[in-house]
């Protein structure tokens, strides 16, 4: 276990280096002069010169990359061209926003997906099974951004059940401590604000969580069907255990392994989908941060935003890989 963990950690090094190489290239592979592209057609010579100097674009690629890595290791994510502030200082609220959103989306996806999959397998070929699998089929095909727009239209604008934009009521902002608003309001014991924060989460979480939910439901169903036919389940049944106990205590444990893989993989889909969802719901997360940066040609923010999301994704996959051995001690590496 320990040696596996160490090997798994060592394998991260080339991946992380490769990631930085790609984000580094975002600025340096732009055809022509990056400074010109960033400043636009009408920029003066002097402005281009000074930007090139401040971004260190005059140095050789090798030296620039070296400085980039050195900066990253010292916690320097560059300076935003728009706000002129160090990205490291302003990025946290956005990261927290994305984390909160993806967390709730994943909770929705896992809770609904696993249970729908279990019931479908349990009542195979029932109307519930057909309905659930039909919804799952639609769910894997639906564009996130369209689902988000439809939700906004129906549940926010027509019915007025949930807010359509942002994380909080702008006239009555939530006082930030960790920037996880659900936690912040909990610390303050301010439950009306907590409800506000949760209400803002509902529509974006469902939009973002639908694809993973559908995939998890299908995966759970098929693995449950397989597990339910295995010998040890027959033994449990022979012992006289009730169906509920058989499914939730015995079968689910083994069915969870492939499901866990899917959950790990789907985090990438979630983090990618966050850009779209956040754009539509004006959610101040890192996806929205990147999207605004693209429109402003704020390349340092694009670079660092993408790097941060990729880093989070890699870390989550690491955790999932290490969790395997914990959940299923039979897995040896």
């Amino acid at each position, binding site marked *: 276990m320990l040696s596996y963990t160490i090997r798994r950690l060592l394998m991260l090094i080339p*991946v992380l280096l490769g990631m930085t190489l790609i984000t580094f290239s975002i600025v340096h592979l732009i055809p022509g002069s990056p400074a010109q592209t960033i400043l636009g057609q009408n920029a003066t010579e002097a402005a281009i010169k000074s930007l090139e100097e401040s971004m260190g674009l005059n140095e050789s690629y090798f030296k620039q990359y070296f400085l980039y890595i050195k900066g990253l290791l010292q916690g320097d994510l560059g300076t935003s061209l728009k706000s002129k502030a160090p990205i490291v200082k302003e990025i946290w609220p956005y990261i927290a926003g994305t984390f909160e959103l993806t967390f709730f989306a994943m909770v929705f996806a896992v809770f609904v997906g696993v249970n729908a999959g279990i019931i479908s397998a349990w009542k195979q070929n029932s109307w519930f099974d057909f309905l659930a699998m039909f919804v799952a089929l639609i769910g894997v095909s639906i564009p996130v951004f369209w689902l988000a*727009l439809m939700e906004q239209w129906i549940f926010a604008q027509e019915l007025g059940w949930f807010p359509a934009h942002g994380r909080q009521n702008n006239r009555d902002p939530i006082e930030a401590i960790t920037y996880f608003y659900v936690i912040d309001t909990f610390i303050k014991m301010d439950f009306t604000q907590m409800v506000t924060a949760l209400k803002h989460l509902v529509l974006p979480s469902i939009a973002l969580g639908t694809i993973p939910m559908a995939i998890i439901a299908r995966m759970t169903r098929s693995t449950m069907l397989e597990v339910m036919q295995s010998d040890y389940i027959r033994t449990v049944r022979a012992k006289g255990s009730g169906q509920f106990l058989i499914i939730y205590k015995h079968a689910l444990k083994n069915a969870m392994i492939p499901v866990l893989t899917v959950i790990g993989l789907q985090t990438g889909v979630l983090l990618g989908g966050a850009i779209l969802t956040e754009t539509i719901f004006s959610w101040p997360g890192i996806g929205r941060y990147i999207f605004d940066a693209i429109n402003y040609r704020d390349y340092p923010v694009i670079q660092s935003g993408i790097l941060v999301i990729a880093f989070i994704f890699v870390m989550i996959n690491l955790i999932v890989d290490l969790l395997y051995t914990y959940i299923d001690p039979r897995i040896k590496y």
Partner: protein
Amino acid sequence: MNNEERQESQLSSPALALQMEEEIRATSPWKDTVRQLRKNKFALIGFIIIITFILVGLFAPLLTPYGYEQQVLQDRLKPPSAEHWLGTDDVGRDIFTRIAYGARISLQVGFFAVTGALIFGTLFGLIAGYFGRWVDMIISRIFDIMLAFPSILLAIAIVAILGASLQNALIAIAIINIPIFGRLVRSKVISLREEEFILAARAQGMKNGRIIFHHILPNSLAPIIVQTTLGFGTAILDAAALGFLGLGAQPPLPEWGKMLADSRDFIQLAPWTLIAPGLCIMLVVLGFNLIGDGLRDALDPRMKN
């Protein structure tokens, strides 16, 4: 349950006897696949959806009297009617016309992006899997790095480098799909490489190229075909997402994702401007998913449950 046990339990099942009988009747694995596929109603629905969209795209100029750029300003945001089947958008363009021409764009992007990814992915996968050692090391690490990014994010990064256009979005989508095909082919090749028929081919003095393209590739086709079909769906979805973010097709091209982005502000006033393009993206993706699932069941009976 391990493999032997599974085989044993299957041997005793009447379903297997039936299946064996069918196998005797089948003349080739491809014919068998086609027959299995035809029995699959979902796959058939998928085919019908895709063929419908292909026909609509092909015959777009015959289906509608309007041009996709044609603006009639006094007919702005008109609800669906006999003249405008799906209504008009905010500058008075006929939505049905734009949807029909949009089908061309989406299907073409899907086709070219996936074909590009298929060619390069298969090539790198074959090389990595067959030659192993440091070649495999390098290629696999590059795949790892690319897969370390959420795919749409990598596409955004690539478009940020190349500049926003439909063509660059297509290139980006092709690139992000390369490691997916590459890994699939590589793992298949590695499992085949040690098979006896490859050893036999090598013992006959066959050249590497011939072994790869005449023996290994044909035997790895099943998962590649399934992934290709499913890939069309995700490629179209990604292209629409990039279009929606303003990083794909540029105006006045009637790309479905871009249409959604342009009509966002009119969601309450004119919901039809948003319903049709989104529904079309979903249907096309659904169609490819249905065919893909059907193919998987037909090509790999073990995957069935």
